[in-house]
C-alpha cells in the first residue's frame, strides 16, 4: 500500500496484544534498512543487554516490496547476541510479500511470551498461540507441524527457529520458508529469548494499483531487464556456487580453515558438479522470476537391503565454502548431508562451518582435547562434523557453548586466536585480500554483502587506502538505498538510480524519487549511529594473523596496508555515524 507514513504493528509478546502505529519518516528513510534503524532507535533499550525482554525484534520491508520484481527481501534488525550491538540480517523467501499483504511496513516484537509460542499475523489476524510442544523440535519437524497448525491459502510465510535459537546461540539463524535464512549475527537467539518458536505471516490483503499506464510500463521494463538480458543468468544457471571454481582458480577460496586458498580436490564441490549430480530443481522468492534457489538432494542408506531416505536441501556458494572447502569436505553429497544437519539445528551455516574449522585446527594443534569436542574433529570427516553440529547447536558442554558464542571467545580461552577466521564474525568465503578483509571486519553487518570488497580488489590491485575507503563509503551508501527498498542485491545491476527513481515515481513516491543520494546518506548515518550507540568501536577491531598469511593470485597480503586501511575506515565509520573519531 502506498502511503506517506509507515504502518507498523508492535506486538507485546507478554500480553499477546498489538499496537498499530503510524510513524513519520517515509521520505527520510524509505523503509527496510532505514526503517529498521529508525525503529531500533525508537524501541531499543541501550542500557540493557540483547536478551532483555524489552529489546525489539524488527522485520521491515520497503516502499517497492511486491510492486516490482526482486523487491523480495525482508530486513531483520535486533541487538545481537554475538556482540551485543545493533545488527541487521536480510532474507528472501515469502516474508517480504507476506508483510506487504498483511498491510504492514514493519513488524516489531517486544516483550517475552510466557511460554514457547507461535505468533500469527495477517491483515485481519493477530494471535499468539501456545506452542510449547514444538520447543526442542528441529527446523524441519517444526515446519511440518506449523503447516498443519496454520492452515492457509499457501500465501503465507513461516519463520522459525531450531534448537540453536532456543538455546540462545549467537550462531542461531531464523529459517524463512525452508530454503532461506536470516542467517547471521544470531537473530534466532533473539526469537528464542522471546519464547517465539515461529512467526506465521499471512498475506491476505490486496491493494488498488496506481491509476494510469505508467506503473505497468515501468514494471514491464524492469521485468524485461531482469529476465530477457544476461544480467541475471548467472544467478539462475549455476547460481552462486559458480564462485567455487572461480575463487579456487584465483587462489582465493578459503580451504581447511584458510590454511590454503585452493585445493586440487575442488572438482567435487564446484557449481558445475552440484548442477550435474545433485540439482533437483530451482525455487524462487515470492515476486522473483529469477529463481536463484538451487535445491539439491540427500539420499542416505539407513538400513540394509537398500532402504534409503531422501531429503531436499538448498545450496549456495556460502554453505559450500563454509562446510565444504573450509572443513576439507570436497564431496557434493557429503556437503549436502552436512548442510541438512545444520539446517535442522537452525544454525547459521557460515558461522558454524568456520567455527568448526577453527576447532579442527585447534584439535590438530593439541589446543583443544578430544574430550572437549566429544567427537574428534578431522578435516574432511563429514560424518563427525554432523555430530559436532548438534553439539554446537545444543551447547552440550562448556567448549561448545563458548564456541557458539563466537570463535574468538573460544580462542581466547583455548588459544589459537591467530588462526580464528573471524572478520567481525566468522568469515565469508573470499580470501581475496585486504579490501575484502577490512570491509567485512568493520562493516555494519560484518557481511560480504555490506560492500563488494572482492570485486573491487579484482579491479584495483593498487594499494590505496584513501581510494578504498571512498569505495567502501560509496558502495555501502548505494547498497543502503537498495536495502531500504528492499531489493535483492543480485538485482543491483538492474536497479540503477535512474530506474529506481522511475519505479518510485510511478507508484507515487515522488519525494523519495527526487534524491536517492540523500536517502542513501541518511540511511547510512542512521545505521552507523545505531551501531555506535550500542557500543561499537571500529578502531578496536582486530584481524587475526591468519589473514595476513594468505597467498592468492595477487601474491601475499601487505600487513601495513591492512592496518592502514583499517584505521582509515574506522575513522570514516565514526564520521558516518555522526561522531568525532575516537
Amino acid at each position, binding site marked *: 500500500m502506498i502511503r506517506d507514513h509507515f504502518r507498523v504493528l508492535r506486538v507485546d509478546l507478554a500480553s499477546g496484544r498489538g499496537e498499530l502505529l503510524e510513524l513519520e519518516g517515509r521520505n527520510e528513510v524509505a523503509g527496510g534498512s532505514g526503517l529498521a534503524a529508525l525503529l531500533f532507535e525508537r524501541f531499543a533499550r541501550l542500557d540493557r543487554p540483547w536478551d532483555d525482554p524489552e529489546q525489539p525484534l524488527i522485520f521491515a520491508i520497503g516502499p517497492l516490496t511486491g510492486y516490482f520484481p526482486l523487491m523480495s527481501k525482508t530486513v531483520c534488525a535486533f541487538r545481537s547476541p554475538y556482540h551485543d550491538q545493533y545488527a541487521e540480517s536480510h532474507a528472501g523467501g515469502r516474508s517480504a510479500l507476506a508483510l506487504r499483504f498483511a498491510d504492514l511496513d514493519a513488524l516489531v516484537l517486544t516483550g517475552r511470551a510466557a511460554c514457547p509460542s507461535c505468533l500469527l499475523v495477517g491483515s485481519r489476524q493477530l494471535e499468539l498461540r501456545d506452542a510449547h510442544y514444538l520447543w526442542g523440535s528441529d527446523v524441519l519437524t517444526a515446519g511440518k507441524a506449523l503447516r498443519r497448525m496454520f492452515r492457509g491459502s*499457501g500465501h503465507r510465510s513461516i519463520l522459525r527457529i531450531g534448537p540453536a535459537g532456543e538455546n540462545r546461540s549467537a550462531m542461531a539463524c531464523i529459517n524463512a520458508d525452508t530454503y532461506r535464512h536470516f542467517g547471521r549475527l544470531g537473530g534466532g537467539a533473539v526469537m528464542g529469548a522471546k519464547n517465539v518458536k515461529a512467526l506465521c505471516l499471512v*498475506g491476505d*490483503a*490486496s491493494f488498488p*494499483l496506481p491509476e494510469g499506464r505508467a506503473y505497468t510500463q515501468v514494471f514491464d521494463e524492469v*521485468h524485461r531487464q531482469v529476465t530477457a538480458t544476461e544480467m541475471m543468468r548467472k544467478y539462475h544457471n549455476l547460481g552462486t556456487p559458480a564462485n567455487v571454481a572461480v575463487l579456487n582458480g584465483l587462489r582465493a577460496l578459503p580451504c581447511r580453515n584458510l590454511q590454503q586458498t585452493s585445493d586440487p580436490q575442488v572438482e567435487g564441490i564446484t557449481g558445475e558438479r552440484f548442477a550435474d549430480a545433485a540439482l533437483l530443481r530451482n525455487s*524462487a522468492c*515470492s515476486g*522473483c522470476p529469477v529463481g536463484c534457489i538451487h535445491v539439491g538432494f540427500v539420499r542416505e542408506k539407513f538400513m540394509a537391503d537398500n532402504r534409503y531416505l531422501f531429503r531436499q536441501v538448498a545450496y549456495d556458494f556460502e554453505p559450500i565454502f563454509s562446510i565444504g572447502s573450509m572443513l576439507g569436505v570436497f564431496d557434493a553429497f557429503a556437503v549436502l548431508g552436512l548442510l541438512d544437519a545444520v539446517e535442522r539445528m537452525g544454525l547459521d551455516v557460515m558461522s558454524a562451518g568456520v567455527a568448526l574449522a577453527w576447532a579442527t585446527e585447534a584439535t590438530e594443534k593439541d589446543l583443544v582435547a578430544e574430550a572437549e569436542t566429544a567427537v574428534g574433529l578431522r578435516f574432511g570427516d563429514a560424518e563427525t562434523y554432523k555430530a559436532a553440529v548438534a553439539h554446537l547447536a545444543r551447547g552440550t558442554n562448556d567448549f561448545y557453548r563458548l564456541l557458539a558464542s563466537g570463535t574468538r571467545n573460544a580462542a581466547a580461552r583455548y588459544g589459537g586466536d591467530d588462526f580464528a577466521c573471524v572478520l567481525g564474525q566468522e568469515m565469508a568465503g573470499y580470501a581475496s585480500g585486504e579490501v575484502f578483509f577490512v570491509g567485512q571486519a568493520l562493516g555494519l553487518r560484518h557481511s560480504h554483502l555490506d560492500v563488494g570488497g572482492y570485486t573491487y580488489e579484482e579491479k584495483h590491485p593498487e594499494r590505496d587506502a584513501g581510494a578504498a575507503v571512498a569505495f567502501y563509503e560509496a558502495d555501502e551508501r548505494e547498497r543502503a538505498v537498495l536495502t531500504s527498498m528492499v531489493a535483492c542485491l543480485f538485482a543491483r545491476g538492474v536497479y540503477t538510480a535512474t530506474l529506481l527513481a522511475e519505479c518510485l515515481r510511478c507508484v507515487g513516491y515522488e519525494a523519495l524519487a527526487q534524491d536517492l543520494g540523500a536517502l542513501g546518506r541518511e540511511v547510512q548515518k542512521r545505521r552507523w549511529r545505531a551501531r555506535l550507540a550500542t557500543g561499537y568501536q571500529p578502531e578496536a577491531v582486530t584481524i587475526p594473523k591468519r589473514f595476513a598469511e594468505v597467498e592468492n593470485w595477487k601474491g601475499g597480503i601487505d600487513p601495513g596496508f591492512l592496518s592502514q586501511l583499517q584505521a582509515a575506515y574506522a575513522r570514516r565509520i565514526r564520521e558516518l555515524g555522526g561522531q568525532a573519531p575516537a
Partner: protein
Amino acid sequence: MLTAPRMERCIGCHSCSLACARQVHRRLSWDTAGIRVASSGGLTSGFEAKTCLACNPAPCARACPTDAFSQRAGGGVVVRKKLCIRCGRCAQACPVDAVYLDPAGEPFVCLHCGRCVPFCPHDCLELAPIPERACLPGAGPEVLP
C-alpha cells in the same frame, strides 16, 4: 483456455498471480487473481496451480443466482461484476477451488485471456484450445441456484 501443463517446473515465484492481479484486476495481490500458486504440502514437494478448468457446463455459473457468472462459450465463465451480490455460491460450487473470494466477498476467477503466460519464467503455463470432453454441454448434473 489457460492451462498449467508443466507445473513440475514451477519455482513458486508467484509472477503469474501477480501479473494477473496487476494487469487484469489492477490490484497488487497474491489472491485477487485467476491463478494462485501454492506448495502442494510444504515447499519440498513442489507447487500446484489453482486455476479455472473451463468447465462446460460450469457449476459456478449454474450456482450463480444473478447471472454475474454465466457460461462462456466452449467452457469457463464470463463474469459481470456489476450483477454480483457477493453470495459466494460460485466459490462453493467450483470443484477445484478456482474462485477466490476477497474479504468483501468479491469473486475472482480466470478469464482465460492468457496475459499471465509470458510472465512465467519456466514456461509452466500455456493458452491451449479447450479439449474435447466426454461430458456434453448441458449434460452435467443440475445445480440449483
